[in-house]
């Protein structure tokens, strides 16, 4: 058994080396395929992170009347925070709002003068609500409107909800995000399927050139396992070598792209790559090994008639 394994391993390596041309061709195609897969992973990451950044910029603001009692504000805040669609709620008190106003108009004399003439804080408290998904703003806004209706029986505490004004841009953003996610998913699937099929075909062709040898081995009395072993091993070797090559090609590209993506997407792809190196390494090489192993196993099985 040990001898058989040793022989299979040796035959695999020798075959890999002596069929250098065929091995190179397979490795080259698989490298391209794995590179495409790797690049897709990064593009997907860029898209996701820029979409998250965009989503973070969207929120609904509820402006309270300056006279609104603190208990009601707190009650609404709690009710909103308890909604399942809400990611988080930021509360800005009257005093903080005033502070911020002062800060912003520090160099604007007219504004400062107007403020001091009023003599009291004219600003109301604000809460900023962020939903988990942009598509959920609609329902949050509906909830807020209902609250407003309910409280307006007495004197409404809510001065304004800016959802109606933001609605159009939120809707546009929602549909863009949905479209981009769908498109990138479809592109990814198509690319992945193409990469896998091309690699599979190349390995099949490589083994097709060895079909006569497989026939000879059978006639000499070699068992199927003994014939198949070296081919499977070669498939795995193609995957490992192609995976390493794909990572080596990706590396300088990411070094170059890193600072640029940081500028536009607020995500440095290179440091992302380094931070998640184990993940990328195992995924790319794992996919390579899987493609190589499965392709060669299927291809040899054909000529072994099993």
């Amino acid at each position: 058994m040990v001898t058989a394994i040793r022989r299979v391993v040796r035959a695999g390596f020798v075959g890999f080396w002596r069929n250098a041309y065929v091995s190179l061709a397979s490795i080259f195609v698989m490298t391209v395929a794995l590179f495409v897969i790797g690049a897709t992973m990064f593009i997907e990451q860029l898209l996701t992170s820029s979409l998250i950044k965009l989503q973070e910029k969207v929120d609904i603001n509820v402006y309270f009347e300056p006279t609104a009692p603190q208990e009601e504000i707190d009650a609404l805040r709690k009710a909103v925070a308890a909604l399942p669609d809400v990611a988080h709620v930021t509360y800005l008190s009257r005093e903080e709002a005033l502070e911020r106003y002062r800060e912003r108009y520090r160099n604007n004399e007219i504004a400062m003068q107007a403020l001091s003439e009023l003599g009291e804080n004219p600003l109301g408290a604000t809460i900023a609500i962020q939903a988990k998904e942009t598509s959920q703003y609609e329902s949050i806004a509906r909830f807020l409107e209902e609250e407003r209706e309910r409280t307006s029986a007495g004197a409404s505490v809510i001065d304004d909800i800016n959802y109606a004004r933001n609605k159009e841009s939120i809707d546009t953003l929602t549909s863009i995000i949905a479209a981009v996610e769908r498109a990138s998913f479809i592109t990814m699937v198509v690319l992945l399927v193409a990469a896998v099929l091309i690699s599979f075909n190349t390995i099949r062709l490589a083994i097709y050139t060895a079909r006569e040898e497989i026939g000879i081995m059978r006639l000499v009395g070699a068992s199927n396992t003994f014939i198949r072993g070296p081919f499977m091993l070669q498939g795995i070797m193609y995957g490992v070598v192609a995976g390493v090559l794909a990572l080596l090609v990706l590396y300088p590209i990411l070094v170059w792209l890193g600072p640029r993506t940081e500028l536009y997407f607020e995500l440095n792809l290179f440091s992302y790559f380094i931070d998640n190196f184990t993940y990328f390494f195992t995924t790319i090489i794992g996919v390579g090994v899987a493609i190589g192993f499965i392709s060669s196993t299927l291809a040899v099985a054909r000529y072994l008639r099993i």
Partner: protein
Amino acid sequence: MIYFDNVSKVYSDGRSAALHEVTFQVAPREFVSIVGHSGAGKTTLLKMIIAEDRPTDGRVYFESLDVHKIPRSRLPQYRRKIGTVFQDFKLLPNKTAYENIAFAMEANGRSDDEIAENVPQALALVDLDDKAWNFPNELSGGEKQRVAIARAIVNQPDIIVADEPTGNLDPIATYEVVQILKKINDLGTTVIMTTHNKGVIDELGRRVITMDEGRVVRDDESGKYVL
């Protein structure tokens, strides 16, 4: 040792019968030549023995074993009892002469020591000690066929099946190959060979089975090439 019992083979197009009710037997240590025109069914006959092809009707026995009842998973073990030699040599192109012979032993599960001992012996028997590390494309036709014979005998099979072993060789190489086959037969291995070569048959003076259109038409104990 080999027994054909009323074997017929009809190919799937239904028209041509490659074998028609063939019955004969081969005793241990015999050297049998099978002659006949192209398409007479000689190669089909040999393929039956190594279970490469199945008869449509009838049975082929190897000793008491019905060859075509052997399960697929046991075929490799069965084939190891038979050494095969082909007109087109069928050497593994990416292996040296030595490795081609060693491969048959490795496939057989022989130990490294046995391989290191037997492969040089087999090479010596076919007089190719000096070409052990050449690849097939560096060898002449006669040399390739001698490597193939060395590979066929290295596992000490009970029988050698040779399909037109001299078909691609010049007269000198043909003579050498036939001498080697004779030597192997003298050492106790049964040989079944198909051939076109009248000179080879007349030289051998052993049993000759003549085939025509899938039938055995003559079977002479010490035959001449008659068609």
